[in-house]
């Protein structure tokens, strides 16, 4: 039995958690839901005794009567990994790149003195088999594995000593829907088999809606609502719970589009990569995109969905004129961009990526960041004109023109994405390519950005190419959708029609994998 009893936490005097109380019984799956900054990760770190420097706690965190907050560091080390284990959000960076996965799983055993050498490796093999990696050798390195596989390695290392509590902090946020569903299933099975408790931390209610026994909703360091999952979802007594619920399946109001007028035409495009190196030669070329055709019309919002590796990013790069194509044609505003995009067309198509922070030079002010695409224009505005255009773009994304003088690190994730959108709008493009543009955002932030995108589309008559693995988002914002699998478009049609009656088995599989909130409209009536 794990319980938090009026746990309060402050870091260097700033209050982070306020009197958090919760109970997790053996074999239970407990969902802790809230947006970033709500204190849910700090709650987990308090349980692990891994709080950052300057943290002060009051209250108690009990594991079977032992108050974890009073334990010495060596005692905590004995507990971590053996009684309480944890996995994190970023499987790509959560493993040591210079150590084999076998060693990293076996380490949990050796560090606690539970097994040595060959025996530890045998158990590591067994645990890796259990998490579905029986085909992956112990001497593989993390960089040779996919994101989903790496998360499985992390899980194997976490469950190696059969802990009583496993904490999963956003375990699937960085993964695509199909992988997410598989990892969540694995975690559910492990809970049943091992009789352990599972604390799942997430910003997305939908992720825990159909797996957690109990849910606690956290806002600004406080638990605002808690109880059995069905009850919390049905009652939604606290306004914040209702807001989270609405945000999770938020669909912005969008104006209907006018008559079709193709701006972008992709005609049987092929993209090949040189094959992987095999000694001194290369293997056969990898066909990333195999003859894809579609059209994007004026004022239309077109979705492109598929899991990681299906070729959607490769296709996007070709459309943006960043990579050459090996076959077919791409016509932008009626002109071919194969083999090279005419420079005067570039200003008309802009892109927003998933991680805006990575695409900002941290030493530039917002004014310079937003004005950067001006170099695409032959008659770029100068001086006051230029400032006026930047201010206009910032106002369009609901930021203040005063923000021009700030640096990117002074903004939150959602605000940064707004800056990225402002930067894309500055050349007054007709097409915006949104490449997983809202995938890294919390549900509530995501909902506000989706509203903004709908508003901008109305105001400027923009066309969107919306690339995402997140089906909920694609459903909310697109008119038409393309489903891509292994470099081919396997299904296309009006979004509602495809989602209501998917024709291709792959589409059905994707839809089944997507986490969904129960439809509660009838339940309320």
């Amino acid at each position: 039995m794990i319980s938090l009893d009026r746990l309060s936490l402050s870091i260097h005097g700033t209050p982070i958690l306020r009197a958090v109380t919760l109970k997790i019984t053996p074999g239970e799956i407990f969902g802790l839901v809230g947006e970033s900054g709500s204190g849910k990760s700090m709650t987990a770190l308090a349980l692990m005794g891994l709080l950052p420097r300057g943290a002060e706690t009051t209250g108690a965190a009990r594991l079977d009567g032992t108050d974890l907050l009073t334990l010495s560091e060596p005692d905590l080390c004995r507990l971590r990994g053996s009684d309480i284990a944890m996995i994190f959000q970023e499987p790509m960076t959560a493993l040591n790149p210079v150590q084999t996965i076998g060693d990293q799983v076996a380490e949990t055993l050796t560090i606690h003195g539970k097994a040595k050498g060959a025996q530890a490796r045998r158990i590591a093999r067994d645990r890796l088999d259990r998490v579905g990696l029986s085909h992956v050798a112990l001497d593989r390195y993390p960089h040779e594995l996919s994101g989903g596989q790496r998360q499985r390695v992390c899980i194997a290392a976490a469950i190696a000593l059969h802990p009583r509590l496993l904490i999963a902090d956003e375990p699937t946020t960085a993964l695509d829907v199909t992988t997410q569903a598989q990892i969540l299933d694995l975690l559910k099975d492990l809970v049943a088999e091992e009789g352990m408790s599972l604390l799942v931390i997430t910003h997305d209610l939908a992720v825990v809606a159909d797996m957690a026994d109990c849910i606690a909703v956290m806002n600004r360091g406080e638990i605002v609502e808690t109880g059995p999952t069905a009850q919390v979802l049905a009652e939604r007594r606290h306004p914040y719970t209702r807001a989270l619920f609405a945000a999770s399946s938020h669909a912005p109001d969008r104006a209907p589009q006018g008559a079709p007028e193709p701006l972008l035409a992709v005609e049987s495009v092929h993209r090949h990569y040189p094959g992987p190196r095999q000694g001194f030669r290369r293997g056969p070329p990898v066909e990333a995109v195999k003859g894809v055709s579609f059209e994007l019309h004026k004022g239309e919002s077109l979705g492109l969905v598929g899991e990681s590796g299906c070729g959607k990013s490769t296709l996007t790069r070709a459309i943006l004129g960043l990579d050459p194509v090996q076959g077919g044609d791409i016509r932008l505003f009626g002109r071919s961009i194969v083999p090279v995009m005419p420079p005067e067309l570039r200003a008309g198509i802009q892109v927003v990526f998933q991680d805006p922070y990575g695409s900002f030079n941290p030493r530039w002010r917002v004014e310079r960041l937003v004005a950067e695409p001006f170099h695409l224009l032959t008659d770029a505005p100068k001086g006051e004109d230029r400032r006026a255009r930047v201010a206009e773009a910032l106002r369009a994304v609901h930021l203040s023109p005063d923000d021009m003088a700030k640096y990117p690190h002074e903004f939150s994730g959602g605000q940064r994405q707004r800056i990225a959108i402002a930067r894309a709008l500055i050349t007054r493009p007709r097409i915006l390519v949104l490449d997983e543009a809202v995938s890294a955002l919390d549900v509530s932030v995501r909902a506000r950005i989706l509203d903004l995108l709908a508003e901008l589309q109305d105001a400027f008559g923009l066309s969107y190419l919306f690339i995402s693995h997140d089906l909920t988002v694609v459903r909310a914002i697109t008119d038409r959708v393309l489903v891509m699998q292994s470099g081919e478009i396997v299904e296309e049609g009006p979004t509602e029609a495809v989602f209501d009656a998917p024709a291709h088995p792959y589409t059905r599989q994707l839809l089944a994998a997507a986490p969904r909130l129960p439809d509660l409209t009838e339940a309320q009536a």
Partner: protein
Amino acid sequence: MARYLLLRALSLGLSLVVASVVIFALIEVIPGDPAAFMMGLNATEENLAALRAELGLDGSALDRYVVWITGMLTGDFGISYTYRVPVAELVLDRLWVSLPLAVYALTLSTLIAFPIGILAAATRGTATDYGIMGATQLGIAIPNFWFAMLLVLLFAVTLRWFSAGGFPGWDNPAAALKALTLPAVALALPQASILARVMRSALLETLDQDYIRTARAKGLSRAQAIRRHALRNALIPVLTIIGLQFSFLIAGAIIIENVFFLPGLGRLIFQGITQRDLIVVESVTMLLVFAVILVTFLVDLAYALVDPRLRRR
């Protein structure tokens, strides 16, 4: 891995060829008569002609380059104009001082830098960290020849533990090592200061990585996480600096060898230049370039050992 090795070896060979052409051109092809330069203003025409013949200056530049390079490859570095002995012999004698000195200094520097760099990173932001950072700042700022003289004043003049200079030869290894100790310390101090700072910042960067958090969640203590996960990842930038420092130590000990009257390569090249012995200068420079490039190659190999991601390239 084979491909990575082959590419590195290829780059090693190419660098050597380019370096040899540059050195040859600088010394021999650039306008001016090397013979006149070596013999000074008072040389007679016959003597100059004799030296030109000895140096083989009559042939074309290409011929002379081929002769020089074939000589280098077969161990024939020419005859020193001032010493009148084969340059190969001179170099080999001196190498037995310079190479051990470089290894000695580098060992000392690593032995000092690793623990204090790791300690500073582990105690980041505390008085210990600031103390170490201040001391290394001082270590970088102090010129090594001045530090060398202080060492001589304290340990040779006042305490009389070491001799102030000279080298007794390797017949008595203990005495030889003793004679190299003060120079090695003088060379190691600034190197250790730089290396410790690199170690600290590399380690701090890896300590912020997600996999350190994963390791802690598995039950490793902070010290175990540093030892088992952070150190090896922090080693890449540290190896780069060690490689650069070794190259510098082989070639750059000129001042220290002069302070301590050590018959090393640095002194040889210094004397070669003052005595206008172009044959010595040319050959020793080429040798030093070879050493630097070889060390870079070895560092590249070490990268691949440390980082499995490089092995597949």
